[in-house]
């Protein structure tokens, strides 16, 4: 018989980690929905976010000001992302409006290899851990790690800000318009290449935020983005490619399934539960929970 307290605790842990996973997935799906390309180097932006946060907290801001490191890491990666888009990915769309998917695939995989190795060259292969953000706390009667609680609150705040930008601002309207009709938005007078640049910047800064928020939990090392990327893609398959609400729901679902599976069956197969969920979804609903069939017209 499973203790109900333990069950609730793992449910809460699943929700917490699921929402943080979703942040990464939303970054991937946001870039995809606008540029119609998969950024295979998303994990490396997560990794850079975690390194930046570690560097800022340990060498510049101090442990008390850890919370300033997160927006700063996001801002730096936003700018880096904008420049990477401008100089490496923009050629994908230059000339006629034909996408060159293979171009984006090659470039982003090359970026993945480059940034991982750059991290090894600059900081070595070792793992680093920034100081804890907060001491253990409670959600209702359930104890939860302070770092995870901070990551949850931080993620919710970032998602709230993201929602406001996308829904309530003119830039957000141009971003949504580009996602809904890339040709239509250009003939409506919007510079879609600039929209791409902003979208890429926002998408990778979400990954950086996840890296910075999770730095004390999953540590800082050159390949720490690989797991986050894998989870991000699992979520996208579950939620539906291009659907932001889908990413959120699928993130929660994945977190809960992994967490409950660990308690009810065995923690050794934690990653397997997510894959089973992905396989089930692919069989039952190949477009994902919120995905729509592509219309070709």
């Amino acid at each position, binding site marked *: 018989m499973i203790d109900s307290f333990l069950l609730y605790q793992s449910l809460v842990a699943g929700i917490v980690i699921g929402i943080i996973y979703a942040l990464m997935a939303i970054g991937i799906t946001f870039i995809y929905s606008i540029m119609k390309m998969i950024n295979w180097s998303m994990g490396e932006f997560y990794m850079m976010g975690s390194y930046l946060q570690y560097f800022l907290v340990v060498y510049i801001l101090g442990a008390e000001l850890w919370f300033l490191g997160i927006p700063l890491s996001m801002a730096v990666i936003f700018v880096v992302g904008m420049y990477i888009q401008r100089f490496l990915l923009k050629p994908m769309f230059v000339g006629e409006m034909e996408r060159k998917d293979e171009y984006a695939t090659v470039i982003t995989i090359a970026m993945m290899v480059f940034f991982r190795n750059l991290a090894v060259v600059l900081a070595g292969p070792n793992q680093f851990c920034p100081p804890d953000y907060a001491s253990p706390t409670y959600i209702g009667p359930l104890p939860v790690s302070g770092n995870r609680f901070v990551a949850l609150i931080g993620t919710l705040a970032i998602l709230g800000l993201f929602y406001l930008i996308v829904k309530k601002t*003119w830039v957000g309207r141009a971003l949504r318009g580009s996602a*809904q009709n890339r040709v239509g*938005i*250009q003939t409506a*007078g919007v510079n879609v290449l*600039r929209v791409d640049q902003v979208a890429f910047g926002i998408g990778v800064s979400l990954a950086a935020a996840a890296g910075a928020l999770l730095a004390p939990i999953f540590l800082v090392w050159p390949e720490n983005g690989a797991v986050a990327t894998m989870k991000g893609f699992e979520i996208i398959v579950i939620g539906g490619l291009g659907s932001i609400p889908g990413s959120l729901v699928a993130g929660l679902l994945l977190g809960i399934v992994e967490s409950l599976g660990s308690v009810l069956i065995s923690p050794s197969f934690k990653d397997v539960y997510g894959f089973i969920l992905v396989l089930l979804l692919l069989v039952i609903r190949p477009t994902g929970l919120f995905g729509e069939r592509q219309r070709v017209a």
Partner: protein
Amino acid sequence: MNRTSTILEIENLTKSFGGLKAVDGLSMSVEKGEIRGIIGPNGSGKTTLVNLITGIYDATSGAIYLGGERIDRLRPHVRTSKGIIRTFQIPKVFRNMTVLENLLVPAFSDSQGDRYKRHKEVVQQAQDLLKFVQLEHMKNELAKTLSGGQLMLLQIARGFIIDPLRLYLMDEPFAGVNPQIKGVIMESIKEMNQEKGVTFIVVSHEMPAIRRLCGTVSVMHEGRSIAEGSLEEVANIPTVIEAYIGG
């Protein structure tokens, strides 16, 4: 209305897709304030021409001038900022935005300078345009809930909000549209032409509509303009008859 100066000049325009020349050395000029019809059998290059003028395609060779300024190397949004607007045969609207939001996207786009400073005024203008095309009652509905004809009206209204609006290209605006909406589209074209002096190029297979709207029509066949004149004039030209019946 000034009909003496040319707004659009196309010189020897060619667009090749591999071995196929969709537009083949086409030259054409359109006068300011004109409503020009473009007709021709399927596959004659009408939509490709619209795509070339609006920057969806890059020309293989030739030149396009708007009011004397060469525009064929400019990106689509820059051409919009110069006052070139278009509609698509399958309306390219933002399906998950409201009808009103669909008009606000171009109203505050890069091409419209610091218009966002007059936010309330522009929103009111968007609402007036929706009234003009009889969609005001649906302004808060998502665009995906609209019928095909209403989507066409929305697409047309979206173009009217661009400032300046000099040349409006409409690609099959009457296709699949019911007679009542067809009437609204025709009235809005006439009114914008007469009151604001907007030049229109209307690509259509609907001869009654072309007859009512257009003083001059250009007939395209195999990527070339084979005749120009009133609909009655071109209808009697043997090459035009031959193009239509596939001789």
